[in-house]
């Protein structure tokens, strides 16, 4: 009985899915604001379309694409070799689309007197070698180290760009589930240090100079800020011409799409050309 209900359900389900245009996006919380704004903009322009967005982290986004549970996976990092291998084995052909450029501002509580750090100092703080702000020119206060959880693309980028191959993140590190959670933790805790995407950093926290450069649009473009990265949307295969995914992804390169990206606080793909 139950099985027949399920089968009937499957049939109805496949019928309705074909009847209405539907698209599912899953993945990074950093790309989330862009995906949400794009989806709402696109649905407003095309009322028959239904786009849903989940923010479960880059790692889950990649898994979702691998299992065929989403049409577009948002990632704030490139696919790992292991993921690419798994997709190849399953016959999934990931194609990447750059949606925006981002920097990873290193943020502290605004009461912190430290103005900037070098990459080496950030690495030492996260690996647990430096535990007090006075060692890097601050006041005598213990450092509360906040990181994104290991499922996050932001974490991967940070590990790669800051920690490198040798240093390990200390076991005393606190892990937070999203960019917003990192910012809230840092904004409420004196002595905290964290990192998040450009779109999440506002005046409630203080961004530090890294190797003497403040994170900004200009320094992301000319690559003087060391913690810069690209944000991606992945599809299974190049989307067919005229398909919903193709039309949606075309938004990235339009004037409107770039405006949305910029208004959220990231660096749009056309910024390099405008310069």
């Amino acid at each position, binding site marked *: 009985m139950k099985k027949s209900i399920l089968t009937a359900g499957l049939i109805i*389900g496949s019928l309705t899915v074909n009847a209405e245009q539907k698209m599912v996006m899953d993945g990074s919380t950093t790309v989330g604001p862009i995906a949400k704004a794009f989806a709402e903009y696109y649905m407003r322009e095309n009322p028959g379309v239904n*786009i849903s967005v989940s923010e479960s982290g880059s790692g889950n986004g990649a898994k979702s694409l691998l299992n065929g549970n989403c049409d577009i996976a948002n990632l704030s990092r490139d696919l790992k070799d292991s993921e690419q291998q798994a997709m190849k084995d399953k016959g999934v052909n990931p194609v990447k689309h750059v949606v925006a450029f981002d920097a990873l501002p290193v943020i502290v509580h605004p009461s912190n*007197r430290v103005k900037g750090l070098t990459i080496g100092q950030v690495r030492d703080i996260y690996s647990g070698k430096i535990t007090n702000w006075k060692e890097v020119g601050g006041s005598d206060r213990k450092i509360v180290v906040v990181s994104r959880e290991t499922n996050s693309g932001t974490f991967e980028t940070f590990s790669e760009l800051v920690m490198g191959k040798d240093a390990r993140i200390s076991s005393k590190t606190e892990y937070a589930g999203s960019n917003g959670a990192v910012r809230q933790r840092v904004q409420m805790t004196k002595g905290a240090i964290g990192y998040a995407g450009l779109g999440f950093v506002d005046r409630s926290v203080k961004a530090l100079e890294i190797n003497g450069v403040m994170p900004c649009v200009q320094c992301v473009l000319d690559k003087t800020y060391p913690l810069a990265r690209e944000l991606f949307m992945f599809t299974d295969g190049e989307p067919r011409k005229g398909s919903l995914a193709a039309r949606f992804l075309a938004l990235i390169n339009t004037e409107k799409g770039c405006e949305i990206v910029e208004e959220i606080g990231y660096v749009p793909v056309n910024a390099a050309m405008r310069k």
Partner: protein
Amino acid sequence: MRLSTRKLLDKSFTFCAVMAVVVLTAFLIFVLAPIFVRGCGAYVFRGTVEYRRMMLDQFGRGDEVALAREIALAQTARQPVYSAVTAFEAELKQMPAARRREMRPLFKVVREGLELLLGPEPGKPLPTLPRMLYGQTRWDGARRHLKHVLYEVQWDYSDDDDGVRVLAPRKPFFAGTALEPIFDLLENDLDRMLNPRLTFYGRFLTDKSVDAHFFGGIGPEVMGTIYLALTAMLIAVPLGVVAAIYFQEYAEGGAVMTFLRSCVNTLAGVPSIVFGLFGLAFFINTIKVSQGKSVLAGALTLALLVLPTVIRASEEAIAAVPRAYKEGALALGAGQWRTVLTIILPAALPGILTGVVISMGRAAGETAPIIFTAAVSVGKLSRPLKMLFRDTPALSWNLYNICTEHEAVDRIRHVQYGMALTLVVLVLALNLVAILIRARVSKRLKG
């Protein structure tokens, strides 16, 4: 034991019990009162002219003519500010280069602050995101934001210790320039520029959100929660009641039954996140009830979660039916099947319903089982049957989402509290229904 000691012990126990109740009540008030008070802020607040402009643009609500008049009035009040800005821009060009370099970033901050407060400057190209199209829609937000425009938060690091927060008025920075008067204008005339009015936004409950909850309501979340809870109960109740009847009326004792019963009890103790992961692994990835997250997958997972509660409540209700009812039916020649269907079930129904309604409250409030199986941050509603195979936003999950993951957590506090209030009221209402049913049952059984 001496009588006085016994009395003392008795009194101290009474005291402890009363204290426990007092602490519990205080705690309940402490937790619920802020949710109620601040949650109501999402429904009743002082809306500004920007709010009415947004409502007309995004939802087509409101009186166009009256609004046009109101906007014109507000515009007249704002004009001196914009004139000062234009005058200052011209002044800036005349300044010596060094002073211009110093003033420009300060001016930029004020200008951005003004746009957030009053909306885009007239005559400038409009931004794309709805969140930037309007000024502060709520008077409380406007008052808060006004402070950002009037004062600059600075941190004084001159001491050896941590920096100290200093509020520095911006006005002195611009002393002697054309921009100076705007600070007094804003402080004194803001209510004429925004025209706050007591607003009742009942449709917060049913409206869709605009631009990721910056504006609009929580309709899709409420509907998603209801769909999920109802579908879960549609699946769990028949299964649970049939299982309970079997356990109570048909099953013989023995090792298998003891084992099955302990299985049901264990199921009740499994953490909800385990159900969520199981739902993803089994319903979505293995038997593929839907392609990706869906209400159906979420409801199946929730049904598993509440199944033990439904079974136990139904078992208790069935066991409470007086034995004489059953014996009478059997003596009159009714078979067991007929006895169960026409005598026992109707008598046990109110008890079963109580369990069902309480489980429904649980299903509506659960977050972990639906994270991987049903819930999304942005989604659109469609007809119920179609919804079954769609992912959906839901109150519990989206509350978490907009409190932690959202890019502007501080700007949408009222939505967070409104959502929390709605969820709490929904669950409370369901529990209240259960209490009413139970009261009726006990009355009937007594009489």
